[in-house]
């Protein structure tokens, strides 16, 4: 009950944050050097009429504050209630419209729909891989403190933390794709597509290929996360195991296994959740590089492309959407935190 209310609260609180992201991104993108129309017409000696026409098409002829109202989608509301001067205002962010990409000549929101899922797939599998490997290893290291298993895992973690993900990606490609030829080196197979799109006979084969294509980029992106999570899990578990409530459980004859699984484990996941929430940001940066290395058509590549081509609307749209994804990620970690630690949701409710 407390948890449900907490969840609702967190989403409501996120609205102003998201609005802030939209405002700041809009201002930042508008202060980028270089006029998008000039870049678009780089090679041609355009007439003022042509420039005028293009500016009108993309709404760049309006003053900045009107552009902003258009972008957010306020103008559209004003148009609906017949506010003078906003008669044919276009829909905006609030209506789910992110404008038109100059480079692709397509609505930005369409591009998001095809580019966001691969990035989410990559990031979620990388974090899943990191959690599934790091948590048992961290617990193991904590229980075998200062023994060989602990030393080995700590060295592995240290290497993982200090090796750049793109380098790991390149090495994985060289080894597993080029040398051994076991796994594909690039592009993803999307499980939500029809198998025939790739020429596969069955859904099962589609899933199988999805996994095969995901393995290398997932490991490349997930290694850093695995290493950091493992370190935190280890120290947090060591701390929990020394807590008075663990001693109490021992004093009442609870077995060491149950103490590990229940009494010490759950409280020690709090720092891990915090870490995962924080790392979502850095992982977005990592995902950009991994998408380049593995030729994955995700948000990261799109963002870089849009910056290179001065695709004004697309830069704006991609940045805002990445920002929103990040906010949602933070909310989910907060909820996970509240689920583990009752003090969080209850404190918020009152």
């Amino acid at each position, binding site marked *: 009950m407390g948890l449900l209310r907490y969840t609702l609260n967190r989403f409501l609180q996120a609205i102003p944050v998201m609005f802030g992201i939209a405002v700041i991104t809009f201002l930042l993108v508008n202060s980028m050097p270089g006029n998008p129309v000039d870049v678009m017409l780089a090679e041609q000696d355009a007439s003022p009429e042509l420039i005028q026409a293009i500016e009108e098409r993309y709404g760049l002829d309006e003053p900045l504050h009107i552009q902003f109202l258009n972008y957010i989608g306020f103008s559209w509301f004003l148009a609906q209630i017949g506010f003078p001067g906003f008669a044919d205002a276009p829909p905006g962010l609030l209506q789910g419209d992110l404008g038109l990409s100059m480079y692709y000549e397509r609505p930005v929101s369409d591009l998001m729909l095809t580019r966001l899922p691969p990035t989410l797939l990559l990031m979620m599998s990388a974090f899943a891989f990191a959690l599934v490997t790091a948590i048992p290893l961290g617990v193991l290291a904590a229980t075998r403190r200062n023994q060989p298993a602990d030393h080995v895992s700590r060295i592995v973690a240290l290497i993982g933390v200090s090796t750049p993900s793109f380098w790991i990606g390149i090495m994985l490609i060289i080894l597993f794709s080029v040398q051994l030829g076991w796994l594909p080196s690039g592009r993803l197979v999307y499980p939500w597509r029809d198998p025939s799109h790739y020429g596969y006979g069955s859904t099962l084969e589609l899933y199988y290929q999805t996994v095969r294509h995901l393995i290398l980029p997932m490991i490349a992106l997930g290694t850093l996360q695995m290493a950091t999570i493992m370190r935190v899990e280890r120290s947090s578990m060591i701390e929990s195991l*020394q*807590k*008075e*409530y663990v*001693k*109490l*459980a*021992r*004093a*009442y*004859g*609870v*077995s060491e296994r149950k103490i590990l699984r229940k*009494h010490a484990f*759950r*409280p020690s996941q709090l720092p891990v959740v915090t870490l995962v929430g924080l790392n979502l940001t850095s992982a977005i940066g990592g995902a950009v590089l991994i998408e380049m290395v593995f030729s994955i058509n995700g948000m990261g590549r799109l963002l870089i492309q849009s910056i290179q081509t001065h695709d004004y609307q697309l830069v704006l749209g991609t940045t805002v959407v990445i920002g929103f994804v990040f906010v949602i990620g933070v909310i989910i970690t907060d909820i996970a935190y509240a689920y*583990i*630690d*009752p*003090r969080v949701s*209850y404190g918020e409710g009152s």
Partner: protein
Amino acid sequence: MSDTILEVTDLKTQFYTERGVVRAVDGVSFDVKQGEIVGLVGESGAGKSVTTSSVLRLIEEPGEVVGGEVDYMGRTIVGFEDTGEELVPRDEMLTEAQMRDQIRGNEIAIIFQDPMESLNPVYTVGGQVKEFIELNRDLSGEEAKEEAIEMLRRVGIPEAAERYGDYPHEFSGGMRQRVLIAMALGCRPNLIIADEPTTALDVTVEGQILELVNDLQAEFGTSFIWVTHDMGVVAEICDRVNVMYLGQIVEQGPVDEIFHDTQHPYTEALLNSIPRPDRTVDDLEPIEGTMPSARSPPSGCRFHPRCPDAREPCREIEPAFEQVAETADGAAHRASCLKHEEVGYWEAEPLEVEVEK
């Protein structure tokens, strides 16, 4: 003699710290008889908690029980043998698994001193009480839950059934302490070790708890080791009492004897430092100075630097812990003070009191 259930002999527990070895418990002997409440009193840092943890073999790194015997109803909880070079655990000493399955919780339960840290913050209060009851008694999950609610009610948690699902942070310190008490009582052990279980409680609630303890004793014949600072509580519930100072027991005997025929200056000082109805605050005499570190205890009698009665021999000679007075029912009354030994105490000069005020 009534049957002894717990016998602790010359128990020694040390902590190996960076700044040296802490002899937290340094040769402690006492016993507990069936149905008896035995007090363990002494200043902060005397080694009371370490003694109780050692009895259940709960001492953790960097600490270790290094010597002595703990015998519970014929079973060896702690026991060593001398191989000539070193002390090694004896074969009949209970294994870790036996301690876990046969002793901890179901035969001997402990109430920890710190109520704020002893409950797990991420599980419900009732669930934690229930878990231990279920583990240590032949009850189904449902029955264990009912028992947990019943125990919570008996220790004075209002609306126990409603509060069963609350989390520890929703309970006050005193309520958490009562939860810990309910846990121990609910497991129906034969012996309960209570480490200052009522210090966070107000006098009314403390009174209720002490009454509950008396009831339980009558009902189930449960024995208690009651650790406390409070001589008033000792007078109220204990049958016998052990006075601890710096890792050792300095006086031991029936409560009446300890109060009315005090044999050790430290006990005397303790009794003089507590408020009593027949005295005003001005009459209180706090014990001078502070207890020295257990890393380098004073030579001779450990209390001599603070003892108002100290004389020359106290500095060099370590007093033996021996029978010092006849008691009405023949129970032992022991103390370790040179006044009771033939070492020339009475002929020697008093020591200058060296404590700083």
